[in-house]
């Protein structure tokens, strides 16, 4: 996004007359470049995803998982479907029950459930904007791998009896497919575009808040400030980041711009990403909701395995250095 950077440079120094060397100048330049890039990407990607979801609603994805003999690849597909389905904590229980009730094995259901909050279109748009495509791709691969392995391990533990008993008794009505008659593509496009703009509009305030915090860190926190902090915690930085991240709850939207600034000021990428994954993927409110359908053992296994996976990813990202 060099074009955007030079535009932001010009706007800050020539149009607004703020020196790019000053803290204020750095903050303003960062804010302009990042917010425009992110908003453009956000609108673009939400459009693509709304369209995809119109043709592939979660009910269809579920039917695909139940009807086809997929052998080992079911974990992959469940994780992929989790990535393209938007996550909302109030839908996690209906999804969980809906999958199990359709006969999808517990492990495969978890592959979906683990990946869903970690990867979504908004997170991807933000990451592309602030980190570029290499880190974004690695993040997506890492998030999906975590879902696949986490789901696989939870499946191997045979924890079906730790699912709340009432879940197995639920029988939902057969055909819930509300997909009405075939609509012409132009009206589908109009409909999904409206949805995409409304998703973007809802998210933009949070993005801007995140970018402002990020911009302030950029402009006023000296480079290397966090080095001492991190070197003090040393090898344990990743687990600490995860432990700090789990009780916090936020979606990816607000966290990513802040993370980017932390990285720019010396926090290693892996440590920062594992913090983000812990904040987004695991949370106490989420645990309280899921407690309704899972017994303690299963909930603990779920959180334990995902937390461990996030730490492994954190160390890997710190190790490879991009």
């Amino acid at each position, binding site marked *: 996004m060099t074009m955007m950077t030079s535009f932001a440079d010009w706007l800050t120094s020539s149009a607004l007359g703020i020196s790019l060397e000053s803290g204020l100048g750095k903050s303003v330049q960062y804010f302009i470049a990042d917010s425009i890039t992110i908003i453009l990407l956000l609108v673009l990607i939400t459009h693509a995803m709304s369209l995809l979801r119109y043709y592939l609603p*979660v009910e269809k994805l579920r039917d695909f998982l139940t009807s086809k003999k997929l052998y080992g690849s079911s974990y992959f597909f469940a994780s992929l479907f989790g990535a393209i389905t938007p996550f909302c904590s*109030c839908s996690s229980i*209906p999804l969980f029950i809906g999958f199990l009730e359709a006969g999808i094995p517990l492990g495969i259901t978890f592959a979906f459930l683990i990946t869903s909050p970690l990867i979504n279109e908004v997170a991807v748009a933000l990451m592309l904007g602030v980190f570029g495509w290499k880190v974004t791709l690695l993040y997506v691969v890492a998030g999906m791998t975590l879902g696949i392995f986490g789901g696989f391990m939870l499946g191997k533990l045979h924890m079906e009896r730790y699912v709340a008993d*009432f879940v197995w008794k639920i029988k939902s*009505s057969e*055909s*819930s497919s509300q997909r009405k008659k075939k609509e012409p593509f132009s009206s589908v496009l109009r409909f999904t575009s409206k949805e995409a703009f409304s998703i973007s509009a809802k998210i933009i305030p949070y993005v801007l808040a995140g970018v402002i915090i990020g911009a302030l860190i950029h402009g006023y926190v000296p480079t290397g400030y966090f080095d001492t902090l991190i070197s003090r915690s040393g090898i344990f930085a990743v687990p600490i980041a995860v432990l700090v991240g789990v009780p916090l709850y936020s979606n990816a939207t607000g966290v990513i711009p802040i993370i980017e600034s932390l990285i720019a000021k010396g926090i290693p990428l892996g440590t920062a990403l594992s913090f983000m994954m812990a904040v987004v993927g695991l949370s106490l409110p989420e645990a309280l909701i899921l407690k309704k359908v899972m017994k303690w053992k299963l909930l603990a296994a779920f959180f334990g395995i995902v937390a461990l996976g996030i730490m492994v990813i954190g160390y890997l990202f710190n190790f490879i250095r991009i």
Partner: protein
Amino acid sequence: MTIKVLGMGCPGCLRLMENVKSAIKNQKRDDTVEKITDIEEIMKYGVMHMPALVIDEKVVSSGKILSVSEVESLITK
């Protein structure tokens, strides 16, 4: 007719409930509106995205917070 809003009490579900109430008021109707928060009850409708809207036992929308005017066009159909 009977209108049901399915959802386990998330902010989106509450907003949909408000919109449904306003839509009914705008159209000067006296439909009964029920809020279904019990998960076993919700699952009977086979929906997986909350909030969902059920009109006369038929699921008409799921995973969307319909606007007042969208609800109006659904109930006047």
